[in-house]
């Protein structure tokens, strides 16, 4: 054995031990057991030889102790390679002399990857300088053949270095790792010899020791609020919350159908490329709409012209989509599923075949509908779930329908009087004696659609750039913008000029949760919406006659706002309650 390898280890050890002992203030290493070491993989087995020619397997050397395993070759002259790994082990060996309880849990394994040269005798000689502290074994293998699977499993990247004549020089180039292995033979950490520190290794060993008697390692998983059971949702339909009427369902409904519908609703596999579910645009945590964009985007980010409507109380909608082109939820299902800029599926058959193939849907349609999945029952399942999303029993409901005098503020009461009086909102957002849907199942032209289609593009656009509003030249924005998508509203369905820019009246229930507003999401806040109607919308030849300047004062607008904010249902209010989803 060449002397300089051991010499390197000794020199390294003495030079570095002081540095390891005196960590600078800016190097902050975590305390033992203040962190977790999740399992990386199972530690591979392999046949090895001890310095006494004893045949053992790696697993036999792992079973009873925590193990640190390093790979070296004895003639290595690269001071930052094998000698360093050995010097680090020697430092651990020395430091743990002061901590016999920890030392008792640990075994060091130093395995040669040059079995032709590093015989058991040589490894004994190599290791002889370091014995006397920890349980430290110096190992080799009977042959390169025996070594090969170990090298492969531990992914040791080693290259033989050849001279100009192509002869092996006896040296290796390597990217060495050290492995921390627990008593269950799992790899719990991997260290690059390039950045190894004995203090860190000792800390990790202590972390594993303390873990033995504590909870097992948990990886962090995003927590979400508990959701209503299917039975609770079914009850929600059969006994709607205060302020809502009885739901008319066009088909028999049960909890199994609701549960299946919920599974479908949140299943990203229902889109062509598995990236998109119904809940991607109708996000439960955001009022079953999307608070973070005006108009939705679909598969591959394709643009959609309109804002995602909320699904709260959609059970009462007789017209679906902003332009009212569908008349039942079960049928509406297929619109987004097949739209090339929404979920992007090429055909009905493609969707049905895909659902049929997915293992975790097997038997579910049969259980719920008594038949395999088909176009009708898939729509009905999704419809069943969405119809259960009833939310009312708001402060307003408890005041107006429940008789609780103090359920809403005086300001909100004045707002309601404005709403059904001078402001005239109730003409479209209906409130009956026994219940209120705050919609009329009709379509109206408020001028917002007209504005989008007919206004001349401005020269500059105000853009929020990292919290700072910057006026940016329109041509800069246009250079990265697809051509604007026009939207003519109801006209696109009827082809009647009088229907240009008519859109469906949305419900106002839970309106505080469903920003941004209007069919295109162009208004960010309820204050902006009130201002829009107060000014009488945007004038155009088809402007609905119900839209007139209102002449509301500042206080009137605040009252109206308070009223609107009292329409949030009791089953969607609290952050920690069971969630309506």
């Amino acid at each position, binding site marked *: 054995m060449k002397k300089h390898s051991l010499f390197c280890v000794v020199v390294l050890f003495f*030079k570095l031990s002081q*540095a390891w002992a005196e*960590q*600078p203030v*800016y*190097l902050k*290493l*975590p305390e033992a057991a203040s*962190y977790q070491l*999740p399992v*990386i*993989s199972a530690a591979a087995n392999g046949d090895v030889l001890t310095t006494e020619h004893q045949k053992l397997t790696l697993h036999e050397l792992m079973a009873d102790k925590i193990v640190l395993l390093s790979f070296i070759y004895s003639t290595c002259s*690269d*001071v*930052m390679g094998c000698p360093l790994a050995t010097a680090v082990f020697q430092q651990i060996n020395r430091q743990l002399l002061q901590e016999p309880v920890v030392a008792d849990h640990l075994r060091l394994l130093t395995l040669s990857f040059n079995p032709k040269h590093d015989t058991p005798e040589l490894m004994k000689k190599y290791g002889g300088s370091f014995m006397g502290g920890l349980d430290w074994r110096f190992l080799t293998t009977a042959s*390169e*053949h025996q*070594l*090969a699977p170990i*090298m*492969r499993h531990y*992914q040791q*990247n*080693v*290259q*033989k*270095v050849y001279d100009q004549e192509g002869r092996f020089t006896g040296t290796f180039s390597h*990217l060495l790792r050290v492995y921390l292995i627990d008593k269950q033979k799992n790899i719990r950490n*991997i260290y*690059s010899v*390039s*950045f190894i520190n004995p203090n860190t290794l000792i800390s990790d060993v202590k972390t594993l020791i303390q873990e033995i008697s504590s909870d097992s390692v948990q990886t*962090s*998983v995003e927590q979400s609020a508990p959701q209503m059971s299917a039975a609770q949702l079914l009850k929600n339909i059969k006994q709607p919350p205060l302020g809502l009427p009885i739901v008319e369902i066009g088909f028999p409904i049960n909890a199994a159908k609701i549960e299946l519908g919920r599974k479908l609703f949140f299943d*990203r596999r229902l889109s062509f*490329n598995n990236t998109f579910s119904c809940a991607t645009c109708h996000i439960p*945590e955001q009022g079953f709409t*999307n608070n*973070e*964009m005006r*108009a939705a985007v679909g598969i*591959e*980010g394709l643009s959609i012209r309109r804002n995602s409507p909320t699904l709260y109380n959609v059970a009462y909608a007789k017209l679906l989509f902003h332009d009212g082109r569908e008349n039942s939820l079960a049928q509406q299902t297929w619109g987004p599923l097949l739209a090339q800029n929404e979920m992007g599926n090429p055909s009905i058959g493609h969707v049905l075949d895909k659902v049929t193939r997915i293992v975790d849907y097997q038997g579910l349609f049969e259980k719920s509908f008594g038949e395999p999945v088909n176009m009708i029952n898939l729509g009905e399942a999704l419809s069943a779930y969405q119809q259960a999303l009833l939310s009312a029993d708001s402060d307003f409901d408890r005041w107006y329908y429940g008789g609780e005098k103090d359920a809403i503020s005086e300001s909100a009461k004045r707002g309601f009087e404005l709403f059904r009086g001078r402001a005239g909102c109730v003409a479209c957002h209906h409130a009956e004696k026994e219940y209120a849907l705050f919609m009329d199942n009709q379509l109206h032209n408020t001028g917002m659609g007209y504005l989008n289609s007919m206004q001349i593009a401005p020269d500059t*656009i105000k*853009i*929020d*750039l*990292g919290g700072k509003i910057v006026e*940016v*030249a329109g041509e*800069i*924005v246009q*250079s*990265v*913008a*697809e051509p604007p998508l026009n939207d003519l509203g109801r006209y696109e369905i009827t082809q009647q000029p009088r229907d240009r820019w008519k859109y469906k009246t949305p419900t106002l229930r839970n309106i505080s949760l469903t*920003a*941004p507003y209007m069919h295109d*999401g162009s208004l*960010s806040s309820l204050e902006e919406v009130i201002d829009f109607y107060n000014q009488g919308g945007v004038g155009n030849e088809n402007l609905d006659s119900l839209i007139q300047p209102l002449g509301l004062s500042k206080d009137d607008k605040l009252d109206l706002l308070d009223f609107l904010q009292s329409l949030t249902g009791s089953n969607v209010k609290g952050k920690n309650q069971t969630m309506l989803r």
Partner: protein
Amino acid sequence: MKIKRLKRVLNKQKWMGFLGGALLVATGLAHADETCQSPYMAKITGQEDFVYVWTLGMKGVGDEQDKLVTVAVNPSAKNFGQVVNSLSVGGRNEAHHSGFTDDRKYLWAAGLDTNKIFIFDVHTHPGKPTLSKVIDDFVEKSGGVVGPHTTYALAGRMMVSGLSNKTDHGGRTALVEYSNAGDYIATHWMPTDANLRGALKSGQHADGYGYDVRALPRLNAMFTSSFTGWSNYMMDFGKMLKDSEAMKRFGNTVVQWDLHARQPRKVFDVPGAPLELRCAWGVNHNYCFTSTALTSKIWLIYLDKQGEWQAKAVADIGDPSKVPLPVDISIQQDDGLLWVNTFMDGTTRAFDISDPFNPKQIYQKKIGAQVNMVSSSWDGKRLYYTSSLLANWDKKGKDNEQFFKLYNWDGKDLKQQFAIDFIQQKLGRPHQMRFGAYALYQTQLSANDFLEIK
């Protein structure tokens, strides 16, 4: 071709750096990748043979699907400047970033839309990579992370930074750790106001957003930057700029992590979407740079004299009011220059960063109608550029140039060596570039070699 081996002598400076730092830094430069890669990785210090270009499929162009394009870039090769291989992977996944494992045998290339991670074998035949494995359960395994972005090598593992989450497709996200074999290990969520995870919120923001990840192992430090969620990065760029709600949803933070514990320690305000992180190489250079896309600034993340990490804006990039949109940045191995690309004007800019607190622009050159990525050879003499930012953010019409270009840098000027038109070649939108070299592998002693030796 020269590969810097591990043989080296500890000079006095490195000893001092080491003794000052306690963690081993002696490999310092030697274990680094070409100027911007993980310090855990072997690197090419001489002439690279190939550039692997992770390319987005483009509707109406060729086979329309994402592909790994291999370009021969060794001037001594007969096919210098030519595409020598194209490996299509199926679908448009929003191909974006890629990174090697620490042993540099595999290239992990991620798709921001479909959340797939494609693992290519680049060592068996460096000129003809093959698809070895596809991770297609990233979202489920990670507990809801969407948008795998940076694939960053740690020792025997890959750290994958997410951009989004499956709950709302917004910007709240996590780091996700895998073994080199492609097995899920753990998820490390970004600190938020609702759950700081033990971190100190040093400013106004703790948004939980993510983008890039980089480590300074000798200082036990890891850093993450913050961009935006799926809803924005997949949205048409022009549509998004006009959407005041969407524009509120950009990251404003850089987070300092305890690298070893994988725990966030400090959240810095860095407003305006800090993107690429580039850490200095010098053994006494305790800092990293990032640039903000929306506010057009270079920020320095540095260790102060008290041993605390701080963040400071140190330079403007172009005229922020004209939205130059800084994108990729590349630090030179001597920590002397920082290349900064600005997408909207298609310009690359060189900043002298010899004083990291006072970067000064010393050079600029227009590369094309749009430019995104820049990758430098280790010696800084060759700079490669690609054009695509994101499929729906690229320019429209005639300015939608899609190219891969090589320039030589002589210290004063960039001179173009060749250009490949990726639309004309029916390839798509070129994005991330990584280097390959025969010499990385030709003397490699693999398990099979052992078997043959017997």
